[in-house]
């Protein structure tokens, strides 16, 4: 699609987006006028550093749906790596930093199931442990406004079809934290099924961990590798060209082995699939 041509037809959002995306997107544009939210993006440390494309895709999807995105610049890390490895003292300041950065946000969206799980599962406990009443109250008030990207779409916005087009054979990896902590269920699958052109294939043993587990992959590299090998076999058995999911840490793990073995299968975050459009470059 020619970007300039689109920019020229800027008179009405509905007409413009509708002209390009068809009927579904007219509905989406209507939705924008009614419910446009101001979303604060918590990109997470590793997505910021290693997977900027995922962040860009999140921005693109949210804006396309009529929401605005801001990025509190002082954000760094949720503290998951330290907390889960046993470095609790080191995680406390990161909790405070998160609250400082996002306390006034209308909605916080993060494209990482494990980071959101870290916050939901542990932030209340951490505030409790710090015996800080004010922080406890702030955490309690803020957490209901924190969403993992896919659940923001499915649960907060009630959407399945976000007007994406992705003509590729794809399999979905359900990250453990999304599955067992956030209970995203088949939300991501519903989003993917609504993508035009996609050939979605389900992987065997969907609920099995890929073996990443943060520092586990390094501390118990042998066991982690064996778990990864089973997951990679599952991915390859689907004959998909891309494996997607809601957490780039799992995808980095699986993708690392897919690349080492020169399988030609690529990892791609669900946001990047949902951001892709007909006439786009991919």
């Amino acid at each position: 699609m020619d970007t300039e041509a689109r920019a020229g037809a800027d008179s009405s959002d509905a007409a413009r987006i509708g002209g390009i995306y068809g009927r579904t997107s007219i509905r989406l544009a209507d939705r924008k006028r009614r419910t446009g939210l101001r979303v604060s993006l918590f990109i997470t440390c590793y997505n910021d550093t290693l997977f900027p494309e995922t962040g860009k895709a999140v921005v693109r999807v949210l804006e396309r749906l009529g929401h605005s995105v801001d990025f509190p610049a002082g954000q760094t890390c949720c503290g998951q790596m330290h907390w889960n490895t046993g470095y609790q003292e080191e995680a406390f300041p990161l909790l405070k930093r998160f609250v400082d950065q996002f306390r006034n946000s209308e909605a916080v969206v993060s494209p990482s199931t494990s980071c959101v799980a870290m916050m939901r599962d542990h932030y209340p406990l951490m505030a409790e442990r710090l015996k800080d009443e004010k922080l406890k109250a702030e955490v309690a008030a803020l957490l209901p406004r924190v969403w993992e990207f896919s659940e923001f779409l499915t649960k907060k916005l009630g959407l399945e079809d976000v007007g994406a087009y992705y003509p590729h054979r794809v399999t979905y990896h359900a990250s453990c934290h999304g599955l067992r902590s956030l209970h995203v269920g088949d939300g991501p699958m519903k989003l993917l099924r609504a993508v035009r052109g996609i050939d979605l294939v389900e992987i065997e043993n969907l609920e099995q961990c890929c073996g990443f587990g943060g520092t586990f992959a390094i501390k118990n590299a042998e066991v982690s590798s064996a778990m990864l090998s089973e997951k990679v076999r599952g991915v390859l058995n689907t004959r998909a060209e891309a494996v997607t999911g809601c957490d780039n840490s799992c995808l980095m793990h699986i993708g690392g082995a897919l690349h080492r073995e020169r399988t030609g299968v690529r990892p791609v975050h669900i946001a990047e699939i949902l951001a892709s459009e007909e006439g786009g470059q991919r």
Partner: protein
Amino acid sequence: MSDTALDPTTAPKFQVAAKTLMGDSQLRKNVRHATKVIQTKRARVVAEMPDWQDLREAGKQLRQHTMRHLDFYLEQFERNCTAAGGHVHWAKDAEDARRIVVDLVKASEVDGKSPTEVIKIKSMTTEEIHLNKALAQAGVHAYETDLAELIIQLGHDQPSHIVVPALHKNRAQIREIFMREMKLPGTDFSKLGGTPQDLADAARRFLREKFLRVKTAVSGANFLIAETGSVCIVESEGNGRMCLTLPETLISVAGIDKVIPRYQDLEVVLQLLPRSATGERMNPYNSLWTGVDKAPAGGDGPRNFHVVLMDNARTEILADEEARQTLNCIRCGACQNACPVYQQTGGHAYGSVYAGPIGAILTPQLMEMHHAQSLPYASSLCGACYEVCPVKINIPEVLIHLRNKVVKQQSSGLNILVNPEVMALKAVAMVFRSEGVFRASQKLGRLAELPLSHKDGQGVGWIDWLPGMLGGWTQVRDLRVMPKQTFRQWFEERGKDAPGRRSEDSVGKESGNER
């Protein structure tokens, strides 16, 4: 696996033992197959229970309540068991428990002589304290009568699962062990058939002779019922029922965590346990007994009945508010079957009779955190264990808590200077505490990885070798190098391009294709 008992005080680190065991392709196939079969059975019988989640909650509440009032229920059990003719002994630790049992066995005269043999029911508590070895040192041979424990004993092996101790052996291997090791006068086991029936028949012939001859039995316990002073054991083979009824003397060793308040509470645990453990709706044999039959000679069951209530660090676990839920465990082994780590390594890697996720939290605590510090890290925190636990023990949460205890040990005093991991994680924590330092580190990281990077056909940089600890990653995985621009740089630049910056204004320009 050798004759050497699983002893957390001398066991190698988990990752070291795991590496060795994972080289055994037969073991891995056996473990993968067996855990899969049990998991499938469990899933089927759990799915048919519409109130399973309520039952789990009831189980949790029941166990939590018991632990909160453990002192009360233990004393109530002692009173009621004693009133029914049982003898209750208190053991502070493993050594204490071994001494009590050995003394009781020695005192249980058979035809005026101190016995040299006992029969045993599968009991992980007696494995925990290496009771068989202590008995042997006292000149008493213990015959394991549970089929799996018999296989372990004859094979000079160690249990690898709390419910299915010989899970790591397949039928062909069991046949070999039986043919080689089973000795019974007048019976030839060397031409044994290979069907399950053949093997069960051999075990039956071998064991029946012991049941009928040996007059002293040692067991564990699944539940102690405070209200009645009763003891409950559930099993699948009937060997337990034999041991509980035929001998003159029965000695049951139980951790103090095995108590439940009321008879009625069996309603909950006897639904949760078999479905979670073996995927059965009910255990084939459910034995419940209260003291001894006081009828004059000729009454049912043993004439002498002893319960050894063993602490062995359980009180310390109880004192730790965050880890106390460990004691709620009813030893079903569902977490072991569900654990993707256990499925790869089997149980011996954990260096303890308690393997898998429950072992990873229980063993270091039984050692009062002096040993087995690698076990809390033997998990990817995937949560599969928590999901299947019939009493909802949040194992990942306890693992993280124990990791914190380990880190505190490792970073005390000068330890911090010799531990690269502690130094690295503390340094990274400092990076995250400032936006400026974080940005600088992102730049620095991009420079540091340059010499390690190779370009692929698409011009993307990949790293296939990393030094030191990080080498664990690159042994089977590549790592993509950092892109030239971080997300935050992109977001900021984009703001500059679009003077309005409000992202609604930029929809027209951005909602699309340029990447």
